[in-house]
């Protein structure tokens, strides 16, 4: 099972500069564990010590914000696309 994860500029120090990485997991939480095994340290940038998504990190599965689909428990399937973005101002 392969899921493509788009990495924002600010986190590419963990991925050797790569814009996308590939990982696997039945849930978003499992996927984060898997990419952290490949790219140590990235989990700490995304998830707090309490096990929640960092306040200023937005994660989208197929363009939908995971905070409305179960956060780290959001279920994933093969071919899903995950995008990580820092929270920025609009308006």
């Amino acid at each position: 099972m392969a899921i493509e994860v788009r990495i924002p500029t600010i986190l590419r120090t963990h991925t050797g500069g790569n814009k996308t990485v590939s990982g696997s997991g039945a849930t978003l939480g499992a996927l984060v564990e898997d990419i952290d095994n490949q790219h140590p340290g990235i989990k700490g940038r995304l998830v707090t010590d309490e096990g929640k998504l960092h306040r200023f990190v937005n994660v989208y599965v197929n363009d939908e914000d995971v905070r409305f689909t179960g956060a780290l428990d959001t279920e994933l399937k093969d071919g899903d696309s995950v995008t990580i973005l820092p929270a920025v101002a609009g308006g």
Partner: protein
Amino acid sequence: MARFASLVDSLGGTPLVGLPSLSPTPDVRLWAKLEDHNPTGSIKDRAAIAMVEAAEKEGRLHPGSTILEPTSGNTGISLAMVARQRGYRLICVMPENTSVERRQLLEMYGAQIISSPAAGGSNQAVAQAKELAAQNPDWVMLYQYGNPANAEAHYTGTGPEIVADLPSITHFVAGLGTTGTLMGVGRYLREHKPGVQVIAAEPRYGELVYGLRNIDEGFIPELYDPEMLDGRFSVGPDDAVHRTRQLVEREGIFAGISTGAILHAALGIADKEVAAGRKADICFIVCDGGWKYLSTGAYAGTLDEATAALEGQLWA
């Protein structure tokens, strides 16, 4: 009644129009709330006029006062119009990667523009405006991201208008910038039409715009309350441009690019409702017309060319 004492008085009461061509079936219908029919041509007139009037009521604004605001364009244009009418000076802090039309309009209305670096996006504009406000305590920062009058304008205006025109509404879709529209209409719907799904569409810009130095520089508007939303979608420039063009070609509505992003989310919901065999009346916001974005390149050439042209620009 279509006669008003002044331009500002003509705020709101915008038309709601059906989309006979883009609606997927007679049972799943899309409705566009045409906010480009406001005094300066965008939904931001509602927030701007409400914030100025609230500050006047609180005694924070007097003739000759200076208003300061971080804005990527539309809020600035709305504020500039009303500030000029009422004798206030306006200073806008605006990221340099916003379209030339927005700058020209602001200057025409007499506003002063302070540019913030493109690489910092709107976050940087907000930070810079907060610094300026601290250095100039006599200036009045209305601060659209945290001013309750912004959301209140939609709670008392946009929301009731929509429900009056579309009592059968099942979904409301709008853009997420300051979050004012979604928070205000969302709260009105939660209270008066529980069960209506409130959906946010947020623009996904090119990488330059997310150029923070660290995650903790991230920004969430103080007005934002996720409890008011049922879902939130990120829409890239390719989908936004595609839908903006479809809206002109199929329905005759010439809208800005952020409206294309909102329509994309609305059509995604429409497809799900058709697949589930449900009836739906989906209302979405047309934030403004396309005029201010012609120079971005979004309306010329192929979709790929237009998408490439938007890279690095704040297109919503």
